[in-house]
């Protein structure tokens, strides 16, 4: 019983944590990796010389050297990785989240770029979730 209590508490914390993430403003890729460079730059130079940003190599190197890497860097790495994924997910969802709005307010408009341009003009009558999706995608 007590064990379930703990599991339940963890599950609740995870759910609350995710809700917190979903509600949080996403940040640009540039800002995400700027934070990475700021908090992990010294560790990268020290432990990951010659290792590149692509293909998760920096992430793997920092994880491999976690014992020597600063705790701030370790937590920053997780946050930055999550930020990039959130922004990617937000961008991938815009057209779907906004499909009703696009259908109602942007009849005959063709192409993602043109539809986005239309939705930006109709911001006052777009649904809250569509507006939020565009903001989270970083396209406002």
């Amino acid at each position: 019983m007590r064990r379930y209590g703990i599991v339940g508490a963890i599950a609740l914390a995870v759910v609350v944590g995710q809700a917190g993430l979903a509600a949080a403003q996403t940040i640009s890729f540039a800002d995400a990796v700027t934070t990475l460079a700021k908090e992990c730059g010294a560790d990268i130079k020290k432990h990951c010389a010659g290792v590149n940003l692509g293909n998760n190599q920096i992430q793997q190197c920092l994880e491999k050297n976690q014992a020597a890497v600063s705790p701030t860097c370790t937590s920053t790495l997780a946050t930055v990785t999550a930020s990039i994924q959130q922004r990617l997910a937000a961008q991938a969802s815009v057209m779907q989240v906004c499909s009703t709005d696009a259908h109602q307010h942007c009849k005959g408009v063709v192409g993602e770029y043109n539809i986005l341009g239309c939705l930006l003009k109709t911001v006052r009558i777009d649904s809250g979730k569509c507006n939020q999706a565009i903001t989270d995608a970083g396209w406002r």
Partner: protein
Amino acid sequence: MSVIRNLGYGAALAMLLATTTANAQDLSETQLVNTLGQVSNEGAPIDVALLVQEVTENVGQGVANLPNWSRLAGMPQLTVEINFENNSIAIEPSSYRAVGQIADALHHPILSKNKFLVVGHTNATGDPKHNLKLSDERANAIVEALSTTFAIPASHLVGIGVGSELPVDPADPKAPVNRRVQLINIGKAN
């Protein structure tokens, strides 16, 4: 930065007609996107194999006047400064932001259907053949970062090195300003 953001989308569209070359370090995302977004559909598509052929056959002699390389000058592009560790393809953490800025721009709906050349340049210090090889590997390291960490479709990016064969300052080919990365919009991705 905030002034530029406040210009909004309408002004951003108008900027599609602005200059074709810019330095990414000085630009907001809106400007980046719009500078790169002026696609010209004139002429045959850029053939990357021909670019590679021209530069490998002319190491030490420059490529500015060669038929395929000279075509790139008229295409929408940005010059970006990205620093690498010495004699390595590892991007310096101080330059992660520049790579992230490119990723932000390339994910924007204006540009997300386009194909880009990532051209690596060195200055003229050292052996031209080595410079060509290193610049090619570095260009491809940037492509790898963009296509994995930032999920830009790999088919939308082509990395190519030109070594010290296309200095931005031909009067002073050894000048550090010649070490740079060009991001060139070569039209619709297939």
